[in-house]
C-alpha cells in the first residue's frame, strides 16, 4: 500500500456546463493525500471545497483532470471512501444500530451479524449506550458521533468530512475534535476535512490546504508538524494563526468583492 490514498491531478469542475448559469467551482487542483494523513481544506465560503470533497467521494464527476484513489481512477461512490455531512444525515426511521449497520444490510448481512458489528463499532467509539436509541433522542453532537461511527463501520481508507461540526456549539465542537483525532489515530484512515474555521484546521491537520475564492485553486499548503493535542496558545501557534488568517482574509476579501461586482452588474 505505497500508493497515495487520494491523488488529484489538474482537477477542475464547472457546474451547469454549457448553460447560462455555468460557473467554475474548481480549477487545476493538484493534491496528494498519503495513507493515514489528516488534510484540512480551508477556504472562504463558496470556494468549492465541498465540491472537491464530492468529487473525491465519487458523487460528482470532475470536468477536467483526474482523481485516483489507491492508484485506481474513481468511477463512482465506494464504501472505502466515506462521506460525513454537516447536517445530521442519520436515517430518522432507523435506530442507531440499524443506521450504523446500514452498509452491511445493503450487502444482505443477517440481523444478528449487523447488530454485532454495530455494537463493536459503537463501543469502540464510546457510544455503546445509544445502540437502541433513535436519532431524534440524541443531541446534535451525539448524532454526529454516530454518523462518524457509521462511516467507520464501512472500514474506510479515506474519511471525507464536510464541515461536520459546523452546526455544533463551541464546547461540543472542541470535544468532537478530540473524539475525531482518537478515532482517526485508531483507524489509520486518511481524513480530508473541510472547514472555514482556522482554529479547527490548526487543531486537526497534518497539512492545511488553503483554497482561493471562486474558482477554487490551491493557494498554499501549510504543514503543521506539532504533536497533538495542540496548545492553541503556544507561541508557534500564534505565528501559524497569523499566517493562516492573512492567507484566508485576502481570499474572503476577494470573494466579497466579486459578490459586490455581481450585485452591481445585475
Amino acid at each position: 500500500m505505497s500508493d497515495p490514498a487520494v491523488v488529484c491531478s489538474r482537477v477542475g469542475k464547472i457546474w451547469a456546463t454549457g448553460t447560462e448559469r455555468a460557473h467554475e467551482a474548481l480549477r487545476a487542483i493538484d493534491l496528494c493525500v498519503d495513507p493515514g494523513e489528516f488534510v484540512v481544506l480551508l477556504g472562504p465560503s463558496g470556494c468549492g471545497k465541498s465540491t472537491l470533497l464530492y468529487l473525491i467521494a465519487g458523487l460528482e464527476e470532475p470536468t477536467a483532470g483526474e482523481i485516483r484513489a489507491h492508484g485506481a481512477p474513481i468511477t463512482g461512490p465506494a464504501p472505502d471512501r466515506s462521506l460525513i455531512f454537516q447536517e445530521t444525515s442519520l436515517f430518522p426511521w432507523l435506530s442507531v444500530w440499524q443506521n450504523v449497520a446500514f452498509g452491511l444490510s445493503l450487502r444482505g448481512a443477517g440481523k444478528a451479524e449487523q447488530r454485532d458489528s454495530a455494537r463493536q463499532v459503537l463501543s469502540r467509539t464510546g457510544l455503546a449506550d445509544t445502540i437502541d436509541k433513535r436519532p431524534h433522542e440524541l443531541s446534535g453532537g451525539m448524532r454526529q458521533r454516530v454518523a462518524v461511527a457509521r462511516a467507520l463501520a464501512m472500514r474506510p481508507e479515506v474519511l471525507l468530512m464536510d464541515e461536520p461540526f459546523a452546526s455544533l456549539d463551541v464546547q461540543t465542537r472542541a470535544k468532537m475534535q478530540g473524539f475525531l483525532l482518537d478515532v482517526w489515530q485508531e483507524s489509520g484512515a486518511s481524513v480530508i476535512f473541510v472547514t472555514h474555521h482556522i482554529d479547527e484546521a490548526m487543531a486537526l491537520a497534518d497539512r492545511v490546504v488553503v483554497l482561493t475564492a471562486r474558482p477554487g485553486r490551491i493557494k498554499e499548503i501549510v504543514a503543521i508538524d506539532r504533536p497533538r493535542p495542540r496548545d492553541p496558545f503556544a507561541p508557534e501557534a500564534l505565528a501559524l494563526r497569523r499566517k493562516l488568517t492573512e492567507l484566508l482574509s485576502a481570499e474572503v476579501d476577494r470573494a466579497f468583492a466579486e459578490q459586490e461586482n455581481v450585485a452591481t452588474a445585475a
Partner: protein
Amino acid sequence: MARARLLPARPLLAPPRWQRLAALARRWLPQLLWTVVSVGLFTAIWEILWYVGWADPRLLPPPHVFLSDLTSQARFFNTAQRWQIGVSPDAGPSPWMAVLITILSSTMRVLAGLGLAAIVSVALGVAIRYFRLIEHLTLPTVTLLAPVSPIAWLPVAIFIFGIGNGPAIFMVFIALFFHMTLATITQIDGVNRNYINVARTMGASKPQIYRRVILPAILPGLLVVLRFNLFGAWMVVLIAEATGVGFGLGQVIMMARNTFNPSLVFFTIVVIGLLGFTFDLLMRLIQRRILYWLPNGVGGFVDV
C-alpha cells in the same frame, strides 16, 4: 414526548392505572373542551338568529329543530330498492338500520376509492421518478388532467359503471388520483439529498435507494397527503351518490332537496361532519403508530 419529560423519572413499576387514566384525561380534556366550546358557539349564534327571527326555521331550521326528532329523520333513510317492480315502498330494514346501512355504504365507497387511489398513485409516482420512460409517457397526461374538476368525470363514471358502487368509487378514485400522483413526485423530489448521498457512498444500488431510503423518507408526507385527501374523498362521494347510486348520504341530501326538507339536509350534514372528524382522528392515530420515529408536532402531526 415533551410533556412526558416534565414528569419525574419513570419509576421501576408502571404507574397505577388511575394515574395513567388521569394523564390521559389531562391530555384529552382541554381538546375536548375546546371542541365543545367551538361547536357550542356556532350553535348558539344560529339559535339566537332563529330566536330573534332572522333565520326562517322553514329554510334554516336551528339545531334544536333538526336534531329534535331523530326517529322521524331516520325514517327518510330507506335503503329498500323502491324503484324495482314488485317491491313495496314500505319494505326494507327498520329506519335506524337504514341509517347505519347508508353510513356504511358511503364510508365503504370513500375507503375503497381512497385506498385504490393511494396505491395506484404512489406506485405511479415512484415509477415516474424511477423510470425516465414512464415519466415521458405519463407525466404530461397526468398534469393535463389534474386540474379537471371531478364533476366532469361524472358522466364518464355513469357511462362506464352504470349505477351502483362502481361509479361512486370511480369518482373518488379519479378525483384524488392525479393530485396524489403529483404529490408523490413532489415528496420524492423533497427527500434530503444527504440521505441519498450517504446511501450511495455505502454502496446502495438504485433499487436499494428507492426501497430503503426514499420510501421511508416520503412516508410521513404521504400520510399527510392521505389525510387531506380523506376530506376530498368525502366531498366527492356525496356528488357521486347524489346522481343515482341507489342509496348513500349523498342520495339522502338530494332527496331532501327535492322534497324541500332542510331539516334532513342539516341532519345529514351533521352525520357527515361527525364521520369525517372520526376518520381524521383515526388516521392521525394510525399515523402516530406508523411514524414512531417522528417527535410530536413534526410532519403534520397534531398532538392527538
